[in-house]
């Protein structure tokens, strides 16, 4: 629909979003936010970074009123895109209340969930207040494969019921997965499953240690070769990368250590009310129990973006930096040091770069 005196904007209005993005960036507006409402989960996924084995986690979580206050403050600061995630966010008894509050306050809300807790109440909520997107994690295309990773028998069947309920309502559902040794053979079937639902499907090969410092998930990583091969099994992938490379090649990368939007246009808040520049940047944080969102945004994040990389960080002018997934936050998660690059990302970047060049030669 269109309105006189105005303009309807959709996700494909690239020029509008590009111009807006530049304004958001230059004015340093926290446009994109992620709220981890809880780290509790009804599943026990082998690779999960949020896995924390404390039975009393709920005790330390923000309550409903505290989340509403933060959401209001984030709204006042200019946040538009809000992600509700976990753990499993629907495990909270007040999920519906927090979700509805965010919607009624004019956020574009995305929910990350394992899909197993889509009750009639949740379905009714999403029918009345549709989300922008619900992304559901599936780790295999069969109960055997998925449940082996989640550690909970029946989780695949429940997730499928959740997916089908939401799709039946017309909700925009996306599926996603994490590529790991345990499920590397599942991806053709997962792709077909997503296709059968008419849902987008994305894969993340980037497994990292848990937030509590347990490095055992790293053992689940597939080789960089396999990770890239899996990515390029999508016939359109090389072309997308080519377009991306052509757009940004030659544009001088900022000389700062961080070159992304963390603390510039985006933030992440954990279940206890600490706001971080993003999920992966753990050193810089501010407790929203001790001050407002705007104070945290203005005070805590103002200097970390000024850091410059050490001279011996090999990423500097590396052309593959555009395609490797360069991320000092990732470095910190992997190496406990944001200034020590990731061999894993670097290896993937090299292979990916070669694939892009070889597959799009002459295009």
């Amino acid at each position, binding site marked *: *629909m*269109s*309105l*006189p*005196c*105005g*303009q*309807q*904007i*959709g*996700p494909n209005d690239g020029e*509008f979003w590009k111009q*807006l993005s530049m*304004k*958001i960036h230059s*004015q340093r*507006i926290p*446009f994109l936010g992620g709220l981890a409402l809880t780290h509790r989960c009804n599943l026990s996924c082998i690779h999960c970074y949020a896995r924390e084995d404390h039975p009393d986690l709920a005790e330390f979580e923000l309550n409903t009123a505290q989340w509403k206050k933060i959401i209001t403050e984030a*709204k006042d600061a*200019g946040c*538009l895109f809000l992600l509700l995630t976990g753990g499993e966010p629907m495990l909270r008894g007040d999920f519906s209340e927090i979700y509805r509050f965010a*919607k*009624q*306050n*004019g*956020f*574009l809300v995305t929910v990350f969930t394992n899909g197993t807790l889509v009750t009639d109440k949740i379905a009714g909520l999403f029918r*009345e*207040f*549709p*989300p*922008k997107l619900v992304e559901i994690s599936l780790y295999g295309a069969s109960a055997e494969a998925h449940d082996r990773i989640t550690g909970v028998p029946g989780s695949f069947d429940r997730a499928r019921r959740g997916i089908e309920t939401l799709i039946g*309502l*017309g*909700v*925009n559902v996306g599926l996603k997965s994490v590529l790991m040794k345990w499920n590397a053979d599942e991806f053709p079937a997962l792709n077909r499953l997503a296709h059968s639902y008419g849902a987008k499907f994305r894969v993340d090969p980037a497994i990292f240690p848990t937030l509590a410092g347990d490095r055992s998930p790293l053992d689940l990583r597939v080789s960089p070769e396999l990770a890239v091969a899996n990515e390029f099994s999508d016939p359109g992938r090389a072309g997308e990368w080519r377009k991306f490379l052509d757009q940004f090649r030659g544009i001088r990368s900022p000389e700062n250590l961080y070159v992304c939007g963390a603390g510039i246009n985006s933030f992440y808040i954990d279940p206890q009310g600490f706001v971080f520049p993003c999920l992966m940047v753990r050193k810089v944080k501010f407790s929203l129990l001790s001050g407002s969102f705007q104070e945290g945004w203005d005070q805590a994040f103002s200097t970390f973006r000024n850091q410059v990389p050490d001279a011996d960080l090999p990423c500097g002018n590396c052309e593959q930096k555009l395609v490797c997934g360069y991320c000092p936050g990732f470095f910190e998660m992997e190496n406990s040091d944001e200034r020590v690059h990731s061999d894993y990302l670097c290896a993937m970047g090299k292979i990916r770069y070669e694939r892009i060049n070889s597959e799009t030669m002459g295009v």
Partner: protein
Amino acid sequence: MQMKLTAKYRKKDKIAGRHIAGESFLIPVCGRPVDMDSIFILNPLADFIWQRLDGDHTVDAILADVIENFDVEYEQARMDAGDFLGELLKKELVEEVA
């Protein structure tokens, strides 16, 4: 649209107004799932009118404010406001206050 100048309108809760980075957005709250991917950007005149659809301002009062704040003739303002209000009513985004 022919407007009653004495009428008062107020926003319904199907859509939320936001101001970010100098832009005025209307964000869908309820409605069809497929509409959740689209937002509206209002120009300054439409935003000015939208802010006054609070159930307290009559259309006449809004037009008076428009003329005072924008370089526009009364007739043009009446037509623009009429078009805008007409669309908002058609899409059930505002309602007349009794």
